[in-house]
């Protein structure tokens, strides 16, 4: 861990430091977990003190926060939003549903593992995770950014074929436009 940090150049270190302390979150309220986000952002838990702030559109966002289960229909939109985000970008998967399907493990239209479709940096488990857990997840992401490990977009681009194959297995009628990424 420390070795990696030492291997960074000073410019990279500063950049990563700024990225770490300024996380614009695109909270994609796909499932029931979205209700935990207001609690995290407002007075009691106040995520803004860590530099975490909501972003309105994927263009401005750094972190894609998937809050809960993803229907296949929603997955399409999530992929779209993810691809519209600009590097470096990070994904936090939130709740059990994104890990193994959670209580929707046998549903016919809810995906079970998010990581098959887009790369995930940090999982926060629980159903629902409490705001403390969310903040702990953000902390973990910040550590990862500071180490320079969080190269989510690169991972996606390098393994694009694998991700695309998985995505197309679920989204049968693949109508994602060519221009999108």
């Amino acid at each position, binding site marked *: 861990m420390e070795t990696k940090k030492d291997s960074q150049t000073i410019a990279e270190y500063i950049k990563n430091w700024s990225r770490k302390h300024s996380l614009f979150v695109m909270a994609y309220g796909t499932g029931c977990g979205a209700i935990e986000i207001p609690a995290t952002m407002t007075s009691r838990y106040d995520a803004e003190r860590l530099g975490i702030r909501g972003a309105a559109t*994927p263009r401005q966002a750094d972190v894609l926060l998937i809050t809960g289960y993803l229907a296949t229909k929603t997955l399409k*939109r999530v992929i*779209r939003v993810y691809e519209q985000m*600009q*590097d470096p970008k990070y994904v936090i998967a939130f709740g059990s549903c994104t890990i193994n399907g959670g209580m929707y493990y046998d549903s016919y239209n809810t995906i079970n593992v998010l990581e098959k479709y887009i790369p995930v940096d940090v999982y926060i488990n629980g159903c629902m995770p409490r705001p403390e857990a969310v903040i702990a997840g953000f902390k973990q992401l910040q550590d990862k950014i500071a180490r320079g490990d969080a190269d989510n977009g690169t991972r996606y681009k390098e393994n694009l074929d694998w991700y695309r194959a998985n995505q197309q297995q679920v989204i049968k009628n693949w109508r994602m*436009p060519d*221009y999108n990424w």
Partner: protein
Amino acid sequence: MNTLALILLILFSGAIVAFLSEKVSKFLPSLIAFISITAAGILFYTSPADVFNFKLSMAGLNFTLKIDEFSRLFVHMIIGLSWLASMYAVGYMQNKERQGTFFFNMLLSIGGMLGIVAARDLVSFFVFWEIMTWSSFLIVVWTGADFRRTGIWYMVFSAMGAYAMLMAIMMIYSDIHTFNIDEIIAAIAEQRLPHLVEASVLLLFGFSVKAALMPLHVWAPNAYTQAPAAYTAIFSGVLSKMGIFGMALVLLSMLKFANPADFSLVYINGFIGQILAWLGAITAAIATLYALIQTDAKKLLAYSSVAQLGYITIGIAIGTPLSVMASLFLAVLHALFKGTLFLAMGAVERQAGTTDMTKISGLIRRMPWTFFVTLVSIISLAGVPPLAGFVGKWMLYEALITNGNVFMVVVVFFSSTAAFLYSYRILFGIFLGQEEDDTAHVKEAPLSMILPMVVMALLLIALGTYPGLLFDPIAQGMTVLGFENVTWQMTVLSNVWGNTVNLMYISTTIGVAFVAALLFLTLKGRKGSRNVGTKDISTSGEIPLEHENLTYQLDFFKPFERAASPLYRRKMTKIYDDLSNGLDALFDFTRKIYTGNGQTYALYVVIFLVALLIYVQNTL
């Protein structure tokens, strides 16, 4: 032969030849129009300044034509814009029917305008005025569309203006038995013109019609919209300035040269000027409000022309050196930027088929040059530095503030701030927004259409830093109007309080900052910078389908409209409609006297006789 007469002859005979040549080829009239305007232009610019004198005595009348320094400013505008517009018209009118009629009238009206600015007697002034009015009327109804709303309004108002002018001319003639303008001015100076005020008001009424001033503007938006774009540029750019020319003649030459000792006359002059200025300000405000709710780009520009003419009128009506200068500067600029805008809209109409902003969008990549010229003219129109429009606006504001017309400044400021709204509307509506598939076939207009627009756009850019290029002829022209020693500098603006604005520094700062920002933003991280299409937008993750139009075009300024709804409640056309309906009813009532019944007429005779008897009885 006399050069001035030759120029007019070239134009008028060119008109006839153009009309006849349509039989030979559809293409020929446009070419002949272009050639004759080019010839007239070459003749004008190659001849020395003192040859433009022409006298003709006929049927006991002396026709005098002379181009002085003030007229010369307008001649520059007329010839310059007409030349560019006729070059543009070659491409624009391609494949259209009845070109002969169009170019006949176009050349006729250009000749008419030249005659107006050169006329030094009221008869030839009036004759040329009517030539201009009629030829422009024929062009307005040329497309044949919507004759009732357009043609009739235009004709009725022009006729009203012409009658008023004729009455004024006769009034003056009955007083001093001359038509010559110089003699009239001399007579005014010697106070030999008892009907000066009445005649001035009537003349101003006639000119206000052409300048589309507030209560008399109703013909303008439709007429500007209906005329083909190549002519609308001239129509709105210079033809409407003939009203301004006339106003300058009356307000600044005739009334100003009156004896200053005559208190009432001076008072009247100031009074008329104030009223005109306020009318101009109200015109500017109201027309701007109506411009921003239009959905057709050409109609929007038509309303905007009315508004801009309001500013120009203010400057002339206030009558201080700075305001007159501002007004004339704005007049030339208006010819440039509104000419460009109408030409650009014509190009859009020709290439994309419509100027309805709810139907087209995202043409920026298809018509980049048209977008560029539109952008430059819109920035000039809005008066944003560093382009030329700012110079005119600045001088107008400073003239009004230093003159104490503070509330008028607020009205003008309101209208020019609201002008940002429609400026953005037109840029966004046509060139920005989503790129749609149904406009994918649109190509850039041909070079012969682009070139005139680009020339004017470059002029606007140059005048933004070097307005002195234009101050020079304006200052010379103002000498004729009686403003001696108007001071001007090439790149510095100043008002009577001694405050200055240095345009050179402004342009330099903007240039340096912009280039620095451009380099920084373009070079920094250029590997990661990507240009994506307008369909790649964040719509909450939804993928817009091909046929889904996401452009925001309808009810564009609805919130503003709601906020300003009291201002939209009254429409001038409705008032005129009510007036005409009322008159109709009145005459209808009057007509009832004539019942067509012999007994009723017999009764009238009896009543009349009784009344007569009673009257005679009483008097005896």
